[in-house]
């Protein structure tokens, strides 16, 4: 049995899109391959590493675990929608200043997780930061520079 592709209307980075895809297609693949938004990465394909994080209706999710049939009408923000033109978001700038990015593969997801955390909790303690970022694995930094970046970003 072969299933037909379906049409999904949703908003990505403030732009309306009509997407044709198999209903069980991962949001990750639809955004990366269909819309060429390649900032999010596939690190594990099982919701463990957070490299594919996006904001779905304002909430942090792993796009590898979201079937596209479930995003009809949704508002999606990817890393490409974070900076305002040339103006970096405070979290992005802070990652640059504090060395929060090394190889960069976890960085887009990590930045989105940090932004999501600061939206829920504008003045997080270090413990809050650790919890808020625990779903985003980084193998390069040991996280210390990322904590520093997030703490500084929320002071702005």
């Amino acid at each position, binding site marked *: 049995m072969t299933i037909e592709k379906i049409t999904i209307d949703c908003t990505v980075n403030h732009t309306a899109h009509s997407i044709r895809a198999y209903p069980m297609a991962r949001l990750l693949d639809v955004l990366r391959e269909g819309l060429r938004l390649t900032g999010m990465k596939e*690190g594990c394909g099982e919701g463990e590493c957070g490299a594919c994080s996006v904001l779905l209706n304002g909430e942090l999710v792993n796009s590898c675990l979201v079937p596209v049939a479930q995003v009809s009408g949704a508002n999606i923000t990817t890393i490409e929608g974070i900076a305002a033109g040339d103006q970096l978001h405070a979290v992005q700038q802070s990652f640059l200043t504090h060395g929060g990015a090394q190889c960069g593969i976890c*960085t887009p997801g990590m930045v989105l997780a940090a932004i999501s955390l600061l939206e829920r909790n504008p003045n997080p303690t270090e413990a809050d930061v650790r919890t808020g970022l625990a779903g985003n694995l980084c*193998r390069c930094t*040991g996280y210390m520079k990322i904590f520093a970046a997030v703490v500084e970003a929320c002071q702005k």
Partner: protein
Amino acid sequence: MSTNQTQIVGQSIQRKEGRDKVTGAMRYVDDLLFPEMWFGATVRSPIARGRIRSIEFTGNLPWHEFTIVTAKDISGQNCTALILDDQPCLADKFVNHAEEPVVLLAHPDKYLLEEARRAVKIDIEPLPALFTMDDALNQTEIIWGDDNVFKTFLVEKGNVDDVWASADFIVEGEYETGAQEQLYIEPNGMIAMANADDGVTVWGSLQCPYYVHKALLKLFGLPPDKVRVIQAATGGGFGGKEEYPSMIAGHAALLAWKAGKPVKLIYDRAEDMAATTKRHPSRTRHRTAVNKDGKLLAMDIEFVIDGGAYATLSSVVLSRGTIHAAGPYACDNVRVRSKAVATNHPPHGAFRGFGAPQSIFALERHLNKVAATVGLRPEELRRRNFLHEGQTTATGQVIREKLDLDGLLTRALELSDYHAKKERFAEHNATNATQKKGIGFATFLHGAGFTGSGERFLESVVGIEATATGNVCILVASTEIGQGTNTILSQIAAEALRLDYEMIELAQPDTANVPNSGPTVASRTCMIVGKLVESAALGLKQTLVQSGLLTDDYSLDEWRQACAIYIAEHGALKSFSKYEAPPNIFWNDETYQGDAYGAYAWAVYVAEVTVNLVTYETRVDDFVALQEVGKVINPVLAAGQIEGGVAQAIGYALYENVVWDNGTMRNNQMTNYIMPTSEDLPPIRVFFEENPYTYGPSGAKGIGELPMDGPAPAILNAIESAIGVRVNCIPLLPETLMKVMNA
């Protein structure tokens, strides 16, 4: 306009490619798209050892649409060229480890490709396989060569056998370390275009473009100018993208050649973990003679590593582990006997530290046992045996630099509040039945650059080119994999030429455009390649000065003008620099004696732990990492290297366990192979001392691997101080600790 005098080396300048990384604009291999690109997949051996009887393409699939590659499609030599060239690119007739590649498939529809991968049935007649170092050594089967041994080393200083009789104490111990997955967050991947007219071009996630280049030359039997290797942005390597990318590049290129289409071959996490290299498991036996004053009289060390099914890099991993096995101590009689043996595991390979974390773990655990036997505190035992200027290492290398390990140890113990905590923890542990606190440390060294004659053989070359605008492009095959290559090499060039950092850029590593500056491994990029960048930069300046276009004291404008004039007259302004060994550095490959490394980084790491006796879990509460690394080029990046290395090493010590089942990794998922999250790590407090090294750029040495060496023994020493139980294997999982404590 005044001369640009700003110091650039030593500043925490922002990462060169940082902006693209925080905005998601950086393009990694899986982000690249080529017209008419197909997708590739690898069909692998389900068992560890056997004879291939048949390959069947089953199921109701349009097989005619697929490109299918097996060993018989290889036009050159069926090997992944490295050191011994014993590893086939595709298994032919026999398989020697689980997940060994046998068949390659390509198709434009990647979902159908997965159906096809499942439908290829490889029928293999099983043969007996080896999975332990003891079975390999005992030759219960011969699976490689005549004796299952890839490589043996013997390092001898003095004569240990003359000492045993006169020693006050002889202390023995056995230490084991497990396999460790590099777990870069970007899985391996390659894209290839290949045909008879244009040759082979690959883009990929890799550390060593010229390793891949060499492998493709042999696989296709092509001349060097017909093979081109381009590094895409690379999402972490840690050694895991040192040798294995040559295999994947070969596979992608074979498919592309046969399909006549570009082929993208990206591993998913499960495939990457199951099939690619891991850190070599090891076993070290120590026998140490010591007198009642704690002076080490003889160190007899037997070091064995499990190389897996093919030789790959095991000989050099063994070499580094062997040389580091006796640590930063002065002992007149040292013998290190080491072996890399074959098993039917997937080949173990490069991983940050490269043998040293294994042998240093053993030594730094063992010295605590020696100290306890003699009745000395662990720090006192070390103080009585530290290397000093003028003394020699196990390979007879005379320490020519200022070296104050005593001072380093004192400072590390102060920074960690070691002595006060030791007392406090003793009181705490006396009254708390379930939470036991401890503190421990390790003292160690790590050599920068290739071992022994390695750098001489490499003959690395670095180029640097100025444009008519006066901007400068560095031409190296050294890759940015997160560690900061682009940034520090730019800083070094900017410093040497007194230009703005923004005026320097790096050419994309592309074997068609950059010279072979050697592989991006072995803590060599800053010290060795950085020095060559510095020399090449100075060569550029010298050309302009000698042409009369520039004086020694120049402004940015004068520089720009000089470049413009020179290029208008000569067409291009380039300078190349080739490696030359520092004077007085000599290594004997036969006796394994001499100057093993141009320079060493020295370190003392202190770990504080709590062991929970309800759950047998160990938590690292605080971590101090103090090191002497020569001049620090970029403090934020350097600290980032140390913090990241310590985090990986905490994983190595306490969490990261590869579950083997007949040579197959069973926990090949991030969910079940446990690396530390942001909640699992202590504050990692990093401190540097700077003792500039004459032959490093601005005095810098190497630091990339160093932080991998010390944490595991420091943590296990801390655990012993917490619970009084000696455990000598890592990863030390709660399940192991429970067994030991209830034995």
